[in-house]
């Protein structure tokens, strides 16, 4: 049997005894998930503070002096990179991937627990190196999160000395950490599922995380390659990316390098990266919607195929980020076409989410609110993406606030809403406690309405031609006064949203002690993680016997069944048999 290796071990698995084994050098996937999440949320807060400072500058350019122009560049760069890589990628895969894969697949742990542990510590090292760049001479890099050469390593850019090198080294370390984790996630899904858990019975969360991990494993090498070559350009004086140019009166030190090559490599990673963040969000949102609407997910098979199709297509659209870099018009046409083709499976997913809600028994719990909020923001971000995917529309809009509005909607706000929803959803299993529901609702509405107030007006700014990555607009003839008013309003909204994060954190931390004790399956969900014998699940997850799966993950409101849900481990012929955790 394939899964004997880890699944059916008779001997009790080695339990950690000391505090250090349990919480520090832990090899338990649940502890590693928490470690990953805490670090990711911590750096995410740093990035949030940076965005607040930037917004104060943009909204009230004459009243605040927190940032000077150099720092503004450094802040956008660190904000963007942290949000995309060190928060969202790490949280979805290192955090949710670690927590959910073994629990949802019915495994005792990841197949390579030791490597899993290393993955976290190496990730932590990457974060430390990244944050160290705030304290070195010249500060962190201000090259923009895209790190385009030649400016990234030229003296005119802040942080062009140590800052950019630390950034590149940190990314390299992150990729090593991700690869170690990724090997685990893929192998565990392929090999360590419990009896009866066929691929097509896996919850969509696992599908999303699984395919996103494959994308990451294949796409991160592109970033790795460019990081190595740029580090060499910056330190040893090679000319992979650096053309001959004289900067600040100096004789050229490089010769013949190709900045365009960097852009290709960067976006060959960068576009799949969008889906590395989006696919887990897609998967998780599907499960939240089905569970809280008490309905099976509409078109499960189509959802799986769509995830796979999006994953494959995401490797052939990268150059839509390079329309303004100049390219053969046929290439432009090709990439515009592939970009629009991706919209098809994506739209299918949106329809299916909406159809899942259709005539559902919708429970507007806090996780459900966030999941529905996601549908709105994602549709908005997706629609503006259709505009930007066309070469002729993109040319005037590129590098304006329209782009900032678009990508924040689609890959900033949308995944973050899912992160919040997911944390509210799985927190009871993780900690055994419930949240304060009222604070959760306040948090939702502030976040949801607040982010609209931030990003919707940005599209308007972009159409007026407000450029992106500008420290201050000054007295600009072609911009009407309304631009300044809008900017001030956006800043106020951003501060409100940032404040709502404090409510979230307060709720999360205080509920650890004050929260009501959670039943094992508070949402009456079908998936395996809710059927563990203990809540929170203990080391080894399943007690003496592994679960056996008899049905798919979406048996909600089955006609004739006594409850409106049948857990995956309930046998088919005895629908009413009580699975562990099945009650009511």
């Amino acid at each position, binding site marked *: 049997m394939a899964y004997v290796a880890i699944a059916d071990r008779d001997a009790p698995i080695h339990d950690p005894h000391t505090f250090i084994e349990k919480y520090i050098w832990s090899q338990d996937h649940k502890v590693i998930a928490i470690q990953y999440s805490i670090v990711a949320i911590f750096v995410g807060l740093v990035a949030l503070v940076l965005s607040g400072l930037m917004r104060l500058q943009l909204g009230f350019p004459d009243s605040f002096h927190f940032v000077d122009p150099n720092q503004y560049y450094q802040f956008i760069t660190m904000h963007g990179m942290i949000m995309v890589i060190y928060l969202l990628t790490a949280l979805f895969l290192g955090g949710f991937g670690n927590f959910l894969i073994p629990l949802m697949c019915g495994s005792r742990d990841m197949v390579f627990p030791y490597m899993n542990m290393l993955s976290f510590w190496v990730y932590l090292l990457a974060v430390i190196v990244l944050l160290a760049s705030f304290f070195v001479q010249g500060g962190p890099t201000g090259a923009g999160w895209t790190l385009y050469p030649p400016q990234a390593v030229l003296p005119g850019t802040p942080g062009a000395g140590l800052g950019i090198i630390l950034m590149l080294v940190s990314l390299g370390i992150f990729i090593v950490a991700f690869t170690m984790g990724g090997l685990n996630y893929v192998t565990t899904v392929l090999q360590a599922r419990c009896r*009866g858990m*066929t691929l097509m019975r896996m919850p969509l969360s696992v599908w999303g995380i699984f395919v996103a991990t494959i994308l990451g494993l294949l796409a991160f090498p592109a970033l790795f390659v460019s990081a190595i070559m740029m580090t060499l350009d910056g330190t040893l004086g090679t000319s992979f990316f650096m053309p001959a140019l004289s900067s600040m009166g100096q004789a050229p030190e490089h010769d013949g390098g190709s900045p365009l090559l960097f852009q290709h490599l960067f976006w060959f990673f960068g576009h799949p990266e969008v889906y590395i963040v989006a696919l887990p969000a897609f998967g998780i949102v599907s499960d939240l919607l089905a569970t809280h609407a008490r309905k099976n997910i509409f078109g499960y098979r189509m959802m799986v195929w769509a995830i796979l199709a999006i994953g494959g297509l995401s490797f052939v659209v990268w150059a839509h980020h390079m329309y303004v870099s100049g390219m053969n018009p046929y290439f432009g046409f090709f990439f515009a076409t592939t970009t629009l083709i991706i919209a098809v499976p994506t739209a299918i997913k949106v329809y299916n989410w909406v159809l899942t809600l259709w005539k559902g028994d919708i429970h507007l719990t806090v996780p459900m609110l966030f999941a529905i909020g996601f549908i709105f923001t994602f549709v908005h971000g997706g629609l503006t993406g259709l505009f930007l995917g066309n070469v002729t529309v993109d040319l005037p809009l590129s590098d304006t606030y329209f782009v900032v509005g678009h990508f924040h909607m689609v890959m900033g706000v949308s995944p973050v809403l899912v992160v919040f929803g997911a944390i509210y959803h799985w927190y009871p299993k993780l900690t055994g406690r419930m949240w304060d529901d009222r604070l959760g609702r306040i948090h939702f509405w502030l976040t949801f309405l607040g982010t609209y107030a931030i990003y919707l007006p940005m599209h308007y700014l972009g159409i007026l031609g407000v450029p992106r990555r500008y420290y201050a607009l000054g007295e600009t003839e072609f911009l009407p006064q309304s631009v300044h008013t809008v900017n001030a309003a956006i800043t106020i909204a951003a501060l409100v949203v940032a404040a709502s994060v404090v409510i979230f954190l307060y709720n999360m931390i205080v509920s650890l002690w004050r929260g009501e004790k959670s039943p094992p399956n508070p949402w009456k969900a079908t998936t395996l993680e809710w059927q563990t014998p203990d809540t929170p699940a203990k080391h080894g997850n399943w007690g003496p016997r592994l679960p056996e799966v008899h049905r798919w993950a979406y048996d909600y409101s089955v006609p004739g069944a006594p409850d409106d849900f049948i857990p995956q481990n309930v046998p088919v012929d005895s629908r009413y048999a009580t699975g562990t955790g099945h009650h009511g």
Partner: protein
Amino acid sequence: MSNTAIVVALLVGIAVWFAVASRLTAKPWENREQKGDVGVLHMSPQRIGLWVFMAVVTSLFALFLTAYSMRMHHSIGWCHLTIPNILWVNTAILLAASVALQLAANAVSGGRRDATRTALVAAGTLSIGFLAGQVLAWRAVGPSLYFVQGSPAIAFFYVLTIVHGLHLLGGLAVLGRASLRFAGGAELVDLRQSLSLCATYWHFLLLVWLAVFGVLLFL
């Protein structure tokens, strides 16, 4: 870039094929009782892990080689590398190492302790010999930073050989551990898997090297 896109598309294709082979067309909602462990791969986790890792490394080198070819075509005055003859010798040594490791793996499955020892020693020595040969190749290509700065071809040569060499070193660490266990008198059956995985990995690194060498020669 499009070559890399093709390679990666291929890898994604393989992943999709896996999924299809394990019945993407199933209708899970029909709740048919499934017998046994349908869809679970009948391979050890270590073997799957190795294959996934090799896919990652394939992507890495495909991208390096794409970068090499694009850098060549984007620039005027690209100066080709003069391939030092020692690279042919190194290639032969790596081939021999790969064969020796396969023999070691076979000997272990056949339960032949002495043959295993000989083959292991040969494989280890040849692999280290290959790395030493690569160092000699650097000296032949351009022995100092001056050359590396001056010629992107030489810089690429260094980067490619170092990255490839590091992967081989990683393999040697694993092989070294298995050899220590062997020397410590471990049961041969317990070494089967790790030697067989090492052999696979060595063949893979040989292929990667052939690809790198081929690109350096012919592009």
